[in-house]
């Protein structure tokens, strides 16, 4: 029980007459890579948004490290150690890669509100931390480049590094491979694996690419039309008839 980092119980959310998420629960174990899959419109992103506080669920409870955060402001959740990326990279397009990483690094050190530049040891620590983040995602060579000039895949890596600048325990990745070329996909997959293997972080990600999901995830939750369809190990999910019928069959044909 204590090794559950994030749990959501009975989450429901509707928009007008559409029940986008209907009574979905999930338990993400600390130190795991957990994937969430499902056809378009299955409610994956909506569910993600209730976890990260993008909006509030109509009902249900979200708990992080056994604390109820269901109604907590999104920026407070970040301070607890929950961070996220978005389907379209949410970055500061006109700022350099370095500056993109600077904002969150300063925020984490509690200096973001200051009217004077950090000096001495404090500044060195911030710079060292940014270098570490740049090295982790392999973007050291483009640190001065404006982010909007970079490829979509590099922007994705910048966003992942930004989410790491908050020093999270759990990283939520919403379709991290969306819109990426094959080579970029491999690079991002490598980075996600490193989040887990090298940094020991817990990862929950939404993904369509089944090759990626089956290669990365230790546990998979399947949504269909807003409901929880199945949950289990990759092997169990691949063998699940209901999942095959709803989703997996045609995806496997398409992608593998």
């Amino acid at each position, binding site marked *: 029980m204590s090794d559950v980092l994030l749990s959501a119980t009975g989450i429901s959310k509707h928009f007008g007459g559409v029940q986008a998420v209907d009574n979905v629960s999930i338990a993400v174990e600390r130190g795991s890579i957990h994937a969430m899959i499902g056809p378009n419109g299955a409610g994956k992103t909506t569910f993600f948004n209730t976890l*990260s506080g993008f909006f509030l669920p109509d009902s249900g409870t979200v708990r992080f490290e056994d604390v109820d955060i269901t109604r907590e*402001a*999104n*920026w*407070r959740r*970040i*301070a607890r150690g929950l*961070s*996220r990326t978005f389907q379209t990279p*949410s*970055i*500061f*397009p*006109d*700022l350099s890669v370095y*500056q993109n990483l*600077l*904002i*969150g690094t*300063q*925020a*984490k050190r509690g*200096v*973001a*509100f*200051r*009217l*004077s*530049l*950090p000096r001495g040891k404090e500044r060195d620590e911030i710079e060292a931390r940014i270098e570490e983040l740049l090295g982790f995602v392999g973007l*050291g*060579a*483009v*640190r*001065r*480049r404006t982010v909007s000039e970079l490829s979509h895949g590099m922007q994705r890596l910048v966003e992942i590094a*930004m*989410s790491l*600048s*908050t020093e999270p325990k759990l990283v939520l990745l919403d379709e991290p491979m969306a819109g990426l070329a094959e080579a970029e996909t491999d690079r991002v997959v490598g980075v996600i694996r490193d989040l887990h293997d090298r940094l020991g972080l817990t990862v929950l990600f939404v993904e369509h690419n089944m090759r990626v999901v089956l290669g990365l995830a230790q546990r998979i939750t399947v949504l269909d039309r807003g409901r929880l369809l199945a949950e289990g190990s990759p092997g169990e999910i691949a063998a699940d008839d209901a999942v095959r019928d709803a989703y997996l069959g045609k995806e496997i044909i398409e992608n593998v």
Partner: protein
Amino acid sequence: MTSGRRAGILAGVAVLVVLAFGPWIGGFLNIDTSFLSEVLLTAIAALGVNLLLGYTGLPIFGNAALFGLGAYGAGLAIKDFHAGFAVALLVGVAAAFVGALIIAPFLLRRRNIYFGLLSLAFGQVFYFIAYRYSDVTGGEDGMAFTRPALNLGPIRGTVTETMMYYITYGLFVLAIVSFWLIVRSPFGQTLVAIKQNELRVRYLGLNTDRFILVGILIAALYGGLGGALYGLLLRFAFPLLLDWHQSGDFVLMTMLGGAGTIFGPLVGAIIFVIGKDIISTITPAWEIFLGAFFIACVLGFPKGILGSIGDAIARRRAPAEPNETAP
């Protein structure tokens, strides 16, 4: 990058040095010293607009309320409480600060055009208070008062037009330097990030409302200081100072000079205050020509004069830095 920054600082210092000879240069060009004071105090007030509009991306359309509160605050302190010059100035700044404290909680709930319209509506509320509450403000006729003597330790005496210029100049230097320090600080960098993508700033764990609140309060200090200086320059405060036309002037000059640049508001204020005066002596239909000039500027300098010049310099520099990406 650093050489560009150094050149920028040098240019800024050069401008400040030239301005120190303002009355002397004005004598050559046949420009009244009081007119130059007006340029500088207008630029101070526009810095506040620049912080919100240019750096944070918040269209503060009702900003003249802060300017007007500065003028009325200084005037009322003199008229009703016989305040000295420095105290009147401080009361003007405090009045704008309190005004911002009242409206900021409402503005914080809005963004983009809704922020702009709500700030405009609040600005008009203050305008109508000045207009209607005539027992205190003099209503439509405005409120005349004297310019009190300065009594600051060794600096004392009546404030002549030249002295008024140097007080305004000194405060302008203070305003520009403080503005520069603010926008390069972590706080200022975060405001720029909010302009770029507020959602991401929140998802970096920061309560953006807090940053915007402080941004509004700082803008009020600049607006109130400019307004208090204007009241002391004219020895007069009147409701149109708070009106939305006046707000529009501040927004226009900020954008014209270069929103998001440190000296943009000064360039805008020079063009605006002096341009208005020159054209209006030639033709009564001066607004048509000013309008045409603005259209030409917007087409020619989409990021404002300084912003577009800065871009052009950056473009010319870019090919000359092949090893930019080297560690």
